């Protein structure tokens, strides 16, 4: 009885794994802390219909190197989903009360499925190799787009969370750029301490066009970002938490709490 009650009061999140996914554990923890019921499932569980998407409010594709990312990052995971789970996924995002979240490798997957920037199942943008030519693990400042259609526009103006990726440079054509700007689909942009988004490396760690770090679809129900909010759930995870005068907000926690509010 208690179980049923809990399920009704708490939204349920599915963290979808593939071989090589490696941020699933901390993503599950982050969701639990912020009030979700969680389940971790391997993509084989969905393909074999052991698990169905229909029971979940939130689908998270976490970070990692799915299938090794030996060819373009997230590509094989995307192809697996596209060819084996397209219908189920379509059903899932057509329901207005559900959210899809892609973090890091998850962002790469969503872009390569063609769910972002719009749900056409045709890839229109990409996340490609960092300009530095190297994997970059750094803490970054993100400017939040206050006009974005997603609930995350209510985050503070500037937040800090870490990035860690080799292929995070957001790249698009001029036409797409016009569209996503007009639709306010940009959610996060790399910036400096003061929120200036014209800064270059290393503040923009990968050379993303328009300093894009995260986008949503037009409705704000499909959300994706390169930085890792699940790595900033406690103030002790912040590099400079040992300074007394700094007022530290764990922005990652705020991130998940904000999503939790509408589910």
């Amino acid at each position, binding site marked *: 009885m208690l179980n049923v009650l809990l399920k009704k009061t708490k939204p349920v999140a599915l963290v979808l794994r593939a071989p090589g996914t490696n941020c699933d554990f901390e993503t599950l923890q982050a969701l639990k802390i912020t009030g979700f019921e969680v389940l971790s499932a391997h993509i084989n569980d969905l393909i074999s219909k052991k698990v169905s998407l229909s029971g979940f409010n939130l689908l998270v594709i976490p970070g990692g190197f799915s299938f*090794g990312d030996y060819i373009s990052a997230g590509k094989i995971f995307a192809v697996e989903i596209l060819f084996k789970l397209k219908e189920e996924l379509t059903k899932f995002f057509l329901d207005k009360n559900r959210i899809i979240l892609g973090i890091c490798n998850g962002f790469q997957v969503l872009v390569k499925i063609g769910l972002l920037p719009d749900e056409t199942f045709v890839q229109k943008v990409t996340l490609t190799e960092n300009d530095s030519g190297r*994997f970059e*693990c750094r803490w970054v400042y993100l400017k939040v787009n206050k006009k974005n259609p997603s609930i995350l526009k209510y985050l503070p103006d500037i937040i800090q969370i870490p990035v860690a990726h080799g292929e995070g440079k957001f790249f698009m054509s001029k036409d797409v750029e016009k569209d996503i700007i007009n639709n306010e689909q940009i959610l996060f942009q790399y910036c400096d301490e003061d929120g200036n988004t014209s800064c270059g490396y290393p503040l923009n760690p990968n050379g993303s066009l328009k300093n894009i770090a995260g986008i949503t679809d037009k409705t704000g129900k499909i959300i994706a970002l390169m930085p890792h909010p699940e790595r900033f759930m*406690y103030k002790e995870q912040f*590099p400079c938490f040992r300074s007394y005068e700094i007022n530290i907000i764990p922005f990652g926690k705020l991130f998940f709490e904000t999503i939790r509010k509408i589910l």
Partner: protein
Amino acid sequence: MKSSKKYCKVINLISATDDKLVEISDKGLLSLTLKEMQTIKKYFVTLKRNPTDCELETIAQTWSEHCKHKTLTAKIKLKYKKGRKFVTKVYDNLLKDTIFYATKKINHKLCLSVFEDNAGIIKFDETDAVAFKVETHNHPTALEPYGGSSTGVGGVIRDIIGCGLGAKPIANTDVFCFGDISTVEQLPEGVFHPKRILKGVVNGVRDYGNRMGIPTVNGSIVFNKRYNYNPLVYCGCIGILPQDKVYKKISPEQLIILVGGRTGRDGIHGATFSSAALHNDLPTSVVQIGDAITEKMFLDVLLKARDLNLYNAITDCGAGGLSSACGELAMNYGCKIFLEKVPLKYLGLKPWEIWLSESQERMVVIVSKELKDEFIDICKKEDVEATVIGEITNTKKLEVFFREEKVCDIDMQFLHKGNPKFEFDIEIKFQKIKKYDKNLEISFGKSLVEIIKKVLSHPNVCSKEYVIQQYDYEVQGNTVLKPLISYTQQYSPQDSAILWPKKDSYKGIVISCGINSFYGEYDICSMTESVIDESIRNIISVGGNLEKIFLLDNFCWGEIQNDGQLSNLVLSCETAKNVAIYFGTPFISGKDSLNNYFLLKEKKVSIVPTLLISAIGIVDDIRKTISSEFKSFSNNVYIIGETKDELKGSVLYDILKKNDSKVPSLDYKNAKKIYKTFDKIKPYILSAHDCSDGGMITSLIEMTFGRNIGVEINLSKVDILLEFCFSESNSRFIVEISPDNKEIFENLLNREKVKFMYLGKTTMKPYVIIKYKNEIVCNEEIKNFYNLWSKGLNL
């Protein structure tokens, strides 16, 4: 056994002459000595038959230096002059009498499993334990930097997955020693330029660690031209496991299951080759090929299976492949293995090749018959291959079959205990320290800033940001002291990494290391003392406690048949024992890599003897730990500990090409006292940084970077300025204290009779200002120092 064989070759050993025995070993890349070959011959003479190729390979692998540590466990007679008399000291087993002895003597209550399993295991809290292992992967890296280093990482991670009943890897460490990166002369054929090796190694470590989702949190890179031909790569891994999963439970009639990747011809002879000289026509098949995702896949399922209690023992297939894994697991019982069941990458492997192959990403798991289906099922669900290849018996024999043919039948007793013990008689000649005139001040005193700049951009001192930030040190969300900390875009390097693995308490794990590439050239005892002290003080300076620090040793030595190298090894072990007992910090695991030399036109060129000490500490509250960047201006800055005339082997002397003075040694009177006092003054310390490579001035300047907070110090009390600034004396820290706590801080140090000196104050102005006898000898913007420090690696 019949003498005619279908699938393997019978080798004529029982009638072989000594010359023939040597030839068999050499041609087969077995790396066995004549004495060992004779012992094997004797064994087969009593069996009245000749060995198969598979048997001989199995023995060679089991007896390899890599697996048996023949030199470190040898009987050693040591002769040296004390006064006018000769003194003899005998070690029955060098390792047992030194390193193990220290651990036994300290008898630390937090040690759970030391020198037994694939890794050392200590208690973390009431329910969980921490495992730590550091491996070397030098020889493969020299031949193929990317493949060598990535499989090094993969291998040590498997050690952690395969220790106890399996630990979850939570962090990696990596330490590299490379040749001189500015080498311009032509290197011999088959030797890569240090720069190329560095890039290959870093890429290999990055790709494997990042893909596995394990943060690489600590490490070190040192350069010395003595590594030009033989780079060193040390890979470490830390794991966490429940305390009721620390011990394996093996018994007869259980099934042996091979999990993970398929077996191919890669990495054959890795174990025996790793202790041979490098030269330019080695086969590349000795280097393994890595694939992190296969390893990640079985890590996921094995941890699940562990928590469901589906298996009773686990170990990795590392050096020596199945031969080593099965041979060791079944040591006390015996086992039967059916090689035709092993899944292969391609056909055509001979039985001994399947048996010895070091193909990566494989684990051997012992499962009871009743749970077999459930275990295999859980693997299958995530596309992990798991195959029953044999079972534990009670025959005390290692029996290996290929189809209907028995290809190996050896007594476990002979295999594991039958090797002849090495014996060495050596004499040590201690060199007298020559007298020298120090004229530092006169020739170099005036250009302090220039010297500081040279030291900061020295490859052993400068920023390793290029490397560190390619590693995902944040994954898993446990890293609460990162390798680099910045508020601006300038980074202050940290002394240790701190992990916060369980969020329901504030307990943490501190990881550090100590290594030096210059000291070993001049004074092996002082080198040993210094690197142990460095690893410990790195933990103390971030807020660790001497009572909860544990050590790992990795000896990388040159050509060991050379007397000087061996006596150095004995001295180093003896010193390590004494220092560990002195600090009460036991060794929990270790590994040696000997014979790191290159055959250059018949001449053997050895590396400088290098000891890596990795240290792990447990802290009760990660919130009370300390980082190195200055926190605020107008605070007091002190140096704790005594700076001595110890410049030999220092970075300054490498730049000045001088070699008088002494190598930093351990001050047995004061070191422990300093560390215990540090624990008491900890609550008042705002930032702390240890003094090591590049001396006190380097540490001081590194502390200014993180927040761009300046410092102004007055060194007028100091006699010899350069010595004070650049000596690398041990057991010293620079600390920042609020002026409000000045008295209580100074009183505590005075009461404990710990030497310290007030240096000056932190300043809002982002400058490093040094006054010396009414003169400003340094007045430089932090930014300028940072630019040199951050670009020193010049890649």
